[in-house]
């Protein structure tokens, strides 16, 4: 299994290296779908230039990276391409190991359930065989590395690739059961872009499941574990924030990074929902809608964790998707991360309702983004509404995709409990509906 992975890595690195050398790299680096004001490489270079001029990079409104990133590239700026390729490789390998481990656990659980005779008799065709699960880890790595979104993001040197690497390391250490490392990587991810905060819930659920701690609010052991995890998480977050403070000697970065993420002052177009909405917003309602939209990202955490408390890895997938759709400045790199998980849920395909339509819409939108951008910005024959319409459609497609997978997952769980071929009282074939 190591050989195909190595081959994949070599192919992926070659594609990236070739694109770096081509004239396309500059074009890609300017694309608003690929880079946001938060992740643009041009702005990192600007931050470094400001540091060289003796000006605090946070005194202006161009640089919004965290201090650790600027210090990382202070040393690595000449090796930026290698760094970004390495980040992608790390992400892919981490996801590969994660999924491999996860599949083992799934298989073991399935075996126990079969032995305990817990599945209804007609559900045998829903049982997953080791043969079909064998290539899933490789597919996940491939979905990440060869996804055009990831390649574009890497060639544009969007720092989103680094965030993805941190997130995948967090998932890996969670699956491996390392509480401390998991807390540290999660705090790093949170430090980079607030939103991964919501991944606390799946991590906690996973650890509790693994350590046989009952998820019960009346049990002391439950609360004790939460306190332990919170201590590690907040402690490492505190250390990172203080470290950033000592690196720059000021707290300027807090409003410049987190204030920027939360208050969305820069309305540069992107694939998200925020930019045009807040460009057209009545000033009077601005704060209200800002709060609504930001809360929307965090809002789904608790209901999702209640519904999916037995399935923390699917919860991770859902959370990543919700963040990628509803965050203030999404880029295609964020989408690539949750899309890498799609092969893990390949067994759900028989329950998906509109996957064909959704994939067509996603593909069409991806092609239309540059076209309508050109018509608006360069040709002047379209206006902002055209581009906005495409972002809307793209987001609707993403929402449908995610909710479709969620539906399929719940439906499969239902079938695993009640049998696949359900009958009505009168013995005729029944249809399942949500009520």
């Amino acid at each position, binding site marked *: 299994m190591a050989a195909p992975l190595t081959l994949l890595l070599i192919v992926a690195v070659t594609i990236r290296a070739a694109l770096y050398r081509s004239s396309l790299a500059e074009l890609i680096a300017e694309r608003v779908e690929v880079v946001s004001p938060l992740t643009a490489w041009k702005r990192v270079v600007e931050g470094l230039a400001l540091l060289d001029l003796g000006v605090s990079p946070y005194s202006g409104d161009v640089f919004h990276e965290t201090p650790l990133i600027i210090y990382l590239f202070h040393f690595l700026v000449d090796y930026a391409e290698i760094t970004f390729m390495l980040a992608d490789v790390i992400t892919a390998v981490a996801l590969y190991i994660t999924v491999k481990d996860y599949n083992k656990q799934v298989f073991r659980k399935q075996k126990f359930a079969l032995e305990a005779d817990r599945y209804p008799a007609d559900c045998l065709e829903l049982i997953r065989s080791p043969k079909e699960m064998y290539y899933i880890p490789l597919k996940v790595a491939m979905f990440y590395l060869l996804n055009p979104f990831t390649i574009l993001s890497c060639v544009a040197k969007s720092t989103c690739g680094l965030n993805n690497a941190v997130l995948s390391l967090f998932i890996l250490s969670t699956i491996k059961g390392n509480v401390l490392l998991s807390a540290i990587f999660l705090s790093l991810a949170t430090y980079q872009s607030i939103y991964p905060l919501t991944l606390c819930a799946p991590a906690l659920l996973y650890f509790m499941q693994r350590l046989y701690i009952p998820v019960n609010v009346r049990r002391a052991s439950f609360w004790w574990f939460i306190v332990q995890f919170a201590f590690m998480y907040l402690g490492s977050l505190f250390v990172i924030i203080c470290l950033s403070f000592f690196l720059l000697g000021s707290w300027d970065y807090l409003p410049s990074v987190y204030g920027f993420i939360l208050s969305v002052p820069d309305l540069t177009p992107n694939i998200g*929902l925020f930019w045009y909405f807040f*460009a057209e917003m009545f000033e009077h309602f601005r704060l209200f809608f800002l709060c609504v939209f930001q809360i*929307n990202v965090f809002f789904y955490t608790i209901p999702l964790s209640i519904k999916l408390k037995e399935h923390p890895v699917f919860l991770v997938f859902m959370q990543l998707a919700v963040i990628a759709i509803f965050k203030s400045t999404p880029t295609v790199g964020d989408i690539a991360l949750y899309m890498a998980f799609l092969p893990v849920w390949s067994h759900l395909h028989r329950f998906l309702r509109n996957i064909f339509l959704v994939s067509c819409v996603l593909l069409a939108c991806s092609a239309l983004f540059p076209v309508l951008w050109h018509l608006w910005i360069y040709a002047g024959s379209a206006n902002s509404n055209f581009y906005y319409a495409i972002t809307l459609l793209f987001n609707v497609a993403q929402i449908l995709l995610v909710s479709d997978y969620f539906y399929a997952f719940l439906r499969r769980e239902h079938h695993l409990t009640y049998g696949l071929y359900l009958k009505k009282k009168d013995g005729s074939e029944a249809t399942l509906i949500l009520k």
Partner: protein
Amino acid sequence: MAARRCSASVVLLFLCGLSVFVAANEQNTTPTGGYRAAEADSPRTPAEAAGHPAAEDGRWEATEVGDAAPADAEPDERDASRPGTTVPQPKDDFQEELVIRPLHSGDIYASFQFRTLWETDFMKGNKVSHYRLFPKSVGQVISKFSVRELHISFTQGYWRTMQWGQPFLPSPPGAELWVWFQDTVTDVDGMWKELTNVLSGIFCASLNFIDSTNTVQPSASFKPLGIDNVTDHRFLRYATLPREIVCTENLTPWKKLLPCGSKAGLSVLLKSEKLFHSSFHSQAVHIRPVCQDSECKTTSWELRQTLNVVFDLHTSGQGKREWSLFKMFSRTLTEACPLASSSKIYIDITDNPEGELFELTPATPLLSQAVLMGDRRTFSVYDLTQQITFGTMRSLNLLIRWKSSEGHMLRPLLHAERYVAGYGLQAGEIHTLMYNNHPYRSFPVLLLDSVPWYLRLYVHTLTVTSKGKDNKPSYIHYQPSKDRERPHLLEMLIQLPPNCVTEVTVQFERALLKWTEYTPDPNHGFYVGSSVVSSLVPSIVAMDTNSSLERPLFSNFFPCKEESSYFVRIYTEPLLVNLPTPDFSMPYNVICLTCTVVAVGYGSLYNLLTRSFQIEEPSPGLAKRLANIIRKMRGVQPL
């Protein structure tokens, strides 16, 4: 004198701290005239020192000393004989003058200057309540806002340096305001805000649009022009409004500040219907403290009002190359302002010593010389305080009739222009070109750029190239912008190599603004104020080392420091930049559509989270349901 010249040469070494309008106005003939000349000379101004070597130059001076002396003796006698000013030393003084220069393009450049000097102290809690010549509104502004220096200009049109040469007083298109506050001021920004609003009222201009998004604090480009050279730029505020349109409503309040209003003296010429029918119009007010005497024991406040106009010959002269005061201003002069201690008209005849280029009537015997922008100019002088000037007609109507359209102009040594490169509405590049036309000397220039926040500059893309080679600026002061708070400020000290173009480029990105932040005509574009290029330019007089034909040999072996450079400030064109615009007609639609998408996300997740899977039971038909209800009432088993 030695100390003064020494201090002047020390100051010369610095680029800053130079007085541009003293340089423009300094004359050889004035020092003969009593206390007034001493007032004019600020001890720090190098241009003043630049005048003196010329005074020692015998050959040039001999022709005019005889002419100039009576002209200057006269006003003193008038002063003494005039009722109302019998006090031993009047504390205030008013002078007016008009300089007319025929330009080589065929246009006429007319520059008015009105200077009011007042030996008083607005500061230290003094309650100044008795005003004579000095306008009360200005005096109150100075004392209320603790202003040390105030410079404001309103300009319509762009000064074409390459066609017209250097102006006496440069100003950018639109409105420009820069103020030095006293160092006792604690809340400079608050003072600035109030001051701009007050000035907005005084001059009927949109100065109230000056806020933190277009105000900068230049660190080197704008130094105080008056005495007490405190250079902490915390007390300096600089702002331009390139979009400001100057018209007659700005001229009327400006004229009201003059002691004679528009009733007498040179100001009767200021008729707005003619002044604004011109290629270039600029009016300015400069307030600064100056020295009263050579030891600088007492200081006085100087209010200098200037108005520069360039008339297009073809529109004002109906195609004939001929003009007169009447044609230009539709007025002739009949008297000086009675309150003025000096009232003169200067005609630049440097290029016309023998009268071969144009003919000037009535002729005047008075001549004056001045070193102006490093160039020795000769002027015909008309002294309006002498009755003889007005002749038998009791009115003065200067007339210039051109004889030939020949003539060449010395190319200005420093010239700058600017444009935006690139296409599309996403990014762009600002190119600033600076021309050093000096054949063999390089000199440093200070470039000041203030760019609004919605053009996000990337300072790492800054390149300075001359002759195809990288030219690293020796000093860069950069302040990045804050969204909706403050603009970018970029100041650089660049050495311009001789006889070549230096190009400064910097890339920017155009921001998408909120729909309420656009101007009512968003597709017209957004203005970016002029860049300011300040420099010490090597003078033309010292430029030609081999043209020693007209000068004694002993005078020109070593280049004379005082005369060898002069201060110049030039402004580039303002830029007009388009930004991407949202659709202004559909905020409701956008709010509805985006919220719908969010609701689709919320709804589908809510659906899956709260409901559970159930087997669909077909609902019975209506008749059956009705029958069941009836059966239930009857107590029979339902169907």
